[in-house]
């Protein structure tokens, strides 16, 4: 049974209702119910291959569900036209797992692309905004480099600059720190925290980096067996009675104590 917080409807940015998806013979999602709250950070955790990135792709409208509904700012993605979907996507920023930078373009052109293609801004204004975001990401002086000439951490930062350049309302992070060492991961987290404080965007993060990611999150959702096993605050998540959540927390963080309700008398014996 999924545990979900009851939260007033007006603050929901994205909502998934009973979303199912099958690829070939593999049933990846079996009825996902999830609410993403405006201005908050929701982290989706779960073992590899469970379909966490598939959930993100559904929210972005890149994949359509076999069954179920996806509401973005209250609009059903299945019922809107391509133009409206594109208008919705103007509110999105995405940091892909492998950064997905355009490898034949320089860092500057990569970050400038959304502004050049989707806005009517002048060349000078675009330059100003791009340089501002690059400076925010500590990437001054890398304007003319190509993605292949950058380190993994720098590529992520360029990806983040590109995701933020249109001042999105919702930013999606697909495994933002995978493949980075602890120092580089911290740097990404620091930049994420700073930019979210500054820009106040809603964040949806798919991550393996437990427990570190808990510190940054308002809600943690576990995807297991094709369902969301509860979308809870990090504290409640770590103390949840849901056996799948407990198992996940134990395997990723080490054994935890049971809750007092479940095992009465346990704490007396410790």
């Amino acid at each position, binding site marked *: 049974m999924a545990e979900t917080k009851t939260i007033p409807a007006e603050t929901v940015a994205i909502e998934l209702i009973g979303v199912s998806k099958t690829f070939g013979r593999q049933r990846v999602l079996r009825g996902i119910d999830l609410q993403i709250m405006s201005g908050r950070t929701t982290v989706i955790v779960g073992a590899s291959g469970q379909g966490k990135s598939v959930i993100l792709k559904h929210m972005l409208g890149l994949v359509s569900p076999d069954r179920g509904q996806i509401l973005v700012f209250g609009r059903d993605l299945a019922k809107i036209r391509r133009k409206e979907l594109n208008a919705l*996507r*103007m509110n999105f920023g995405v940091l892909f797992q492998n950064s997905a930078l355009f490898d034949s373009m320089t860092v500057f052109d990569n970050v400038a*692309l959304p502004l050049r293609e989707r806005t009517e801004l002048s060349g000078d204004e675009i330059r100003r905004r791009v340089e501002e975001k690059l400076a925010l990401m500590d990437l001054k002086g890398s304007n003319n480099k190509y993605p292949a000439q950058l380190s993994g951490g720098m590529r992520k930062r360029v990806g983040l600059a590109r995701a933020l350049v249109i001042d999105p309302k919702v930013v999606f992070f697909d495994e933002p720190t995978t493949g980075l060492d602890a120092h580089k991961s911290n740097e990404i987290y620091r930049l994420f925290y700073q930019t979210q404080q500054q820009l106040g965007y809603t964040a949806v993060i798919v991550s393996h980096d437990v427990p570190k990611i808990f510190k940054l999150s308002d809600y943690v959702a576990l995807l297991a067996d094709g369902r969301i096993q509860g979308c809870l605050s990090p504290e409640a998540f770590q103390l949840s009675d849901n056996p799948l959540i407990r198992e996940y927390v134990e395997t990723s963080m080490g054994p935890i104590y049971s809750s007092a309700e479940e095992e009465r008398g346990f704490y007396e014996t410790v």
Partner: protein
Amino acid sequence: MRRTLEKIGDETLYLLEMAGRMGFFLLRCIGRTVQPPYKLRPILQQMEFIGARSIFVILFTGAFTGMVLGLQGYYTLRKVGSEGLLGSAVALSLIRELGPVLTALMVIGRAGSAITAELGIMRNSEQIDALECMAIDPYKYLMVPKFVAGIICLPMLTCIFDVVGIWGGWLVGVKLLGVNAGAYFQGMYANVDWQDLRMGLTKSLIFGLLLVWVSAVRGYYLHLERDGGFGAEGVSRITTRAVVMSSVTVLVWDYLISAIML
């Protein structure tokens, strides 16, 4: 028996699905081409890639095709004592058939394969997804410039191929084998008419569309390939397939257009 039937059914469904996907892909590309805004710069960049950078290879193949036509034509026509017809034989075979077909095959090898590989890598590394997430239409942004450039460049390259080929034939026929220069060109003027030029140019226009279409669709839908289009091997496999498929398509359509227009 049942297994055979299942296999046939599977294969039919797969082919139908692929045909449908290709059809919708082309329709979308055409739709986006006529839809504003129109951007000239990306089209010019693609024209440079598909057209300008193919000129050298077209000059080279054009010259040698013309030369071998001159050589073969001369010895064949001499048997019936009609060396004077060499000019028109060279020009007609080039303008109607060899010019458009060989130009298309050379461009498939040079630019078509590159288009498939480029789009395949973009698909594999989520660059196409990234475009969509930024609300940039991948058809408009990636495909339209390629289609327009292909349709503009192929006829131009074919013209270059034809002219160079005719001069190649002249070099061998007139300069090396001693056919009368006046007869070579006069025969050409007399026997080549607008109808032939129109057929050649129609072919090259259609080939330009076909080769970009097949190359682009294979790369773009790399992830939907039945045997998996993942990694470097997936891209190389799909590129090979795209080259074979576009070459075969061009040859089949060459026959169809000839049959219709003759």
